[in-house]
């Protein structure tokens, strides 16, 4: 159940500078818990009171997990998870 996780620059201090790390988990919640075991402190930067932080966006295969079940979103082998800070958008 290996999932590729893209880490934003600001959080790479937790991953020894790695842009992508591999992790396992049947749900996003489990994945974040396992990530935190390998990279202590990471979960606290992503979660607050058991929810995704307001300005943290997480995408599973490019779809925003807030629309796919949030932390309970199921994961499969080969999935790609991307963590990004919320931005204002561009041209608009």
């Amino acid at each position: 159940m290996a999932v590729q996780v893209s880490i934003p620059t600001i959080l790479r201090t937790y991953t020894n500078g790695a842009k992508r790390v591999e992790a396992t988990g049947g749900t996003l919640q489990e994945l974040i818990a396992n990530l935190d075991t390998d990279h202590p402190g990471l979960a606290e930067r992503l979660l607050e009171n058991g929810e995704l932080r307001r300005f943290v966006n997480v995408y599973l295969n490019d779809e925003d997990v807030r629309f796919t079940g949030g932390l309970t979103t199921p994961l499969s082998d080969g999935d790609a998870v991307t963590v990004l800070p919320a931005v204002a958008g561009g041209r608009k």
Partner: protein
Amino acid sequence: MRYDSLLDSLGHTPLVGLPRLSPSPEVRIWAKLEDRNPTGSIKDRPAFAMIAAAEADGSLRPGATILEPTSGNTGIALAMVAKLKGYKLICVMPENTSEERRQLLRMWGAEIIGSPAAGGSNEAVRRAKLLAAEHPDWVMLYQYGNPGNAGAHYSGTGPEILEDLPTITHFVAGLGTTGTLMGIGRYLREKVPGIQIVAAEPRYDDLIYGLRNLDEGFVPELYDAEVLTTRYSVGSAEALRRTRQLLDQEGIFAGISTGCALHAALGIATKAQKAGERADIAFVVADGGWKYLSTGAYEGTLDEAEDRLEGQLWA
């Protein structure tokens, strides 16, 4: 068609089918050509509406100075209206936006205050809010929180799309201020049972996100997740590829954010086709490609174009 002035010619843009990119006669994709607006982008709609509302409620008076954080199209639309109506416009704009946008703004007489490239639009918004506090006499229309932004789409773009495509099943647009998706999304949800409202969000490279602190993110005040069915993140490589595909296969010369929306639209179309479901998918062509020529997006290989876009705000 005849209008009393350029401002009156806003909207009523064509909705055109994409016969080559649509997977089948049952699953069709339609492009709403918002580049056919007075200054060449969808942003004319919110810009005109926000100015009209501020004039009506008395906050915008003759000779006033308008302040706005913008990375381009809204500023360009405001600049044109401000020129015609005698307002002064100051735009706070990230430094990593294309030269064409700067020239267009200056051409219509706007003043540009640069904000650091690394901070992207978040930083432009922050700086504009500080400036607004320092200059209480300036009028900040604030597209990220102004109900007139979404309102222009609720009363204009949404009804136009439904009139032209009563069988619509999905609506797709780029996510920035969120005004387009909130306004059109709310209108279509009221009128079309089961309609899906899909956001395509530009995903930039590390240079743009690099210094973003996760605690200082930004979610536009207009954003209401309840209006959306889902939200996709689309990287610059996919956006570029689709922008060129639209040009090659359908002849439409669009800006890069249009490629972002088209990528999501094609993903939906493929899903519907596989599931054997009928679909009429409308997506927004937010502007033409003219303002992005200097980015090199349309020349050389896709890899070269992607490299040239690094560090630039392309939507």
